[in-house]
């Protein structure tokens, strides 16, 4: 069962999903994003998709975490989410 976390400041634009997909496939989609944003009536939640495909944007050089780069409204919360799970901690 995916673990969903409320993402503070998120406005549900899915720019992060699009950026993630672009990193993986050179094309924009929701399908090829490693993360999923969902509306929860009082805000937006995020979860990694299963199976896990996030590679922390290896190969993007100093432009790591493309989702964080193109997020504006929830940048800090998103970065914390990505990092926490990467380190294996509680999101």
């Amino acid at each position, binding site marked *: 069962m995916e673990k969903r976390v409320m993402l503070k400041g998120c*406005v549900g*634009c*899915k720019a992060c999903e699009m950026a993630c997909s672009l990193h993986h496939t050179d094309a*924009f*989609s*929701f399908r090829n994003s490693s993360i999923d944003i969902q509306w929860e009536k009082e805000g937006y939640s995020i979860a990694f998709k299963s199976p896990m495909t996030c590679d922390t944007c290896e190969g993007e050089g100093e432009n790591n975490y493309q989702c964080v780069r193109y997020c504006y409204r929830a940048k800090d919360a998103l970065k914390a989410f990505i990092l926490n799970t990467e380190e294996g901690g509680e999101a």
Partner: protein
Amino acid sequence: MNMGTILRVNLTTGKMTRESADRYEKWIGGIGVAQQILYDEVKPWMSAFDPGNRFIVATGAMTGMLCPGSGRIAAVTKSPMTTGIASGNAGGLFAPKMIYAGFEYIVFEGRSRKPVYLYLKNGEAKLLSADEISGKTVGESVDYFEEKHGRQVSSMCIGPAGENLVRYACVTIDRFRVIGKCGFGAVMGSKNLKAIVADGSEGSVKPADPYGLKRKLDDIYDRIDSNANYKHLMDYGTLCHIPGKYLTAGFSFRHGQDLNIPKEMADAYDPDNIVNTYRVHQSSCGGCFVGCQNHHRIQTGEYAGKVVGGAPFNSVLNFGTKLDITNYGYCVEATWLCNDLGMDMDAVAEILGWVMECYEKGMITSDQIDGMDIPFGEQKQSLELIKMIGYRQGVGDILAEGVARAASAFAKETEYYGNHLKGNDLYEIIRPLIGYGFGAAVSTRGGSHVLGSPVCESSKFNEAEREMALKKFKVNTFNDPLAYDGKPEIVTYYESLTRACSSMGLCIFVSDWQQIHMLDHQDLADLLKYSVGLEISADELRERMMAVLNLEKMFNYCHAGFTREDDMPRERLFKEKVPTGPAKGTVLDYDKWNAMLDHYYDIHGWDTKTGIPKPETLHKLGLDDLIPDLMQPAQVPGHSFIHEDLVTNKK
């Protein structure tokens, strides 16, 4: 560029076919493509509710791509309100989901015998029965779609108002986003088409130059980040305009009888107040981080309970100042009702305001409105009246026709008080904002400030901004709201810029219409290069968008018989001076307006007497196919519902 796929849906036969959109390449995307199809296929003798009318949904060149402003979906049809062209767009997540589902354009024709909705996923399109949601509100219908197809779908849906052919019924996207104005919902209702549902979980869109696009995006992100004024929009949504509008007479008070509101009202609607007290979260359109839609919950009192998205600046003007009601809860409730029943709130507010004004003046009596008592400030009964309009009950059945038509059912003197342009109920204020008002008056869809009106007139640009503006407009009256000079030039600039945004599926809020340093024609041309590989200069882009405008003008001439007199505001705006406040004494001047209109037609290459494009102008814009239509008189005088003496200014 690859223009993608047109899905053709014949609702009469249930058959669907696909074709390439490549032959419409010169229009780039969005409304240009849709309007060409409409012009070619809908005959002037067809009414908006004829099966032969087309309802066209159009993505833009950048739809499905990450970009500030991305996420807009456009619709085009023949308007039940004006009998001319109807175009509109809205946000939410429908646009990327439709394109990921595999479709760039959808053209509906005919009429289904039973209620249906179109379901799109992974390159497949199905017409499914809408029996279970027939008569249901937008909210109930979206609940149904999400349960049946999953929460990942987006919908473009009509409510009872559209099904009942309320003339200004709208289409609601994702519960709280609206393609308003012009009556799109009624056209869908006339076709028994309840909704389009798009599942975008499978497909993708490939940019031509991902690296170039990302560098351009970085630049745009920086521009937004470095501008404090722009952050205002992000912090408050369009509520950010409220304090400024209070200081510059930007509110319609008591149905426009004044443009100045009491201080207590301004304080009650202060954006900080609203946001801190009621806001739950913000939302954005697909691919755009600006996030200018607020979601509010009223916690106490009669309007307490639900979380409602929307209720932006327009709600405060429409249901607050225009009706003299100082209660944001009422504004939220009325907005929600309009979205859920599926009606354009600008039109609803106009007809309510008109009823209230005429009622107070004794021209409309209680027995004419089902025994109701509706002076300005009346909340409960006006909400009741909104429902009656949505369901066409009682006097709601007449009011559902819009103020131009409804007036003919009451005392003749009520006609003078209805605010409309080209038969479309009017939201815009005109007297103290000449450019803004002029853009609305000449707008091909009958009012509306998003297809040419500037919004910079009541701003005070700094030195750098003034320089930018001078370079763009080549006139210097951009911060002078009462000036008539220079306004045709500014409106012309925005006529092409707003259409360029629409053709790309981008929102005008990220253009220099919103903030002078934001995206201009060159920026859009750059984005076209990186996104779809189209090499086009800024000048050529402007010219193509002028061609879109001329196509609209010709459609209006052939279908509605609109000429110069339809670009004039109504008589009361030339007669009644603003009584109080910052714009005290302002009133429109016939001579100045006519001179401004002459000049506007000149710079467009249109006949000064009629306002119709000249043959050489159509030729210059590559529209030779339309020249024969000039040679005949307008085939159908579509706006005969506007009485002879309502068409203002025979001077």
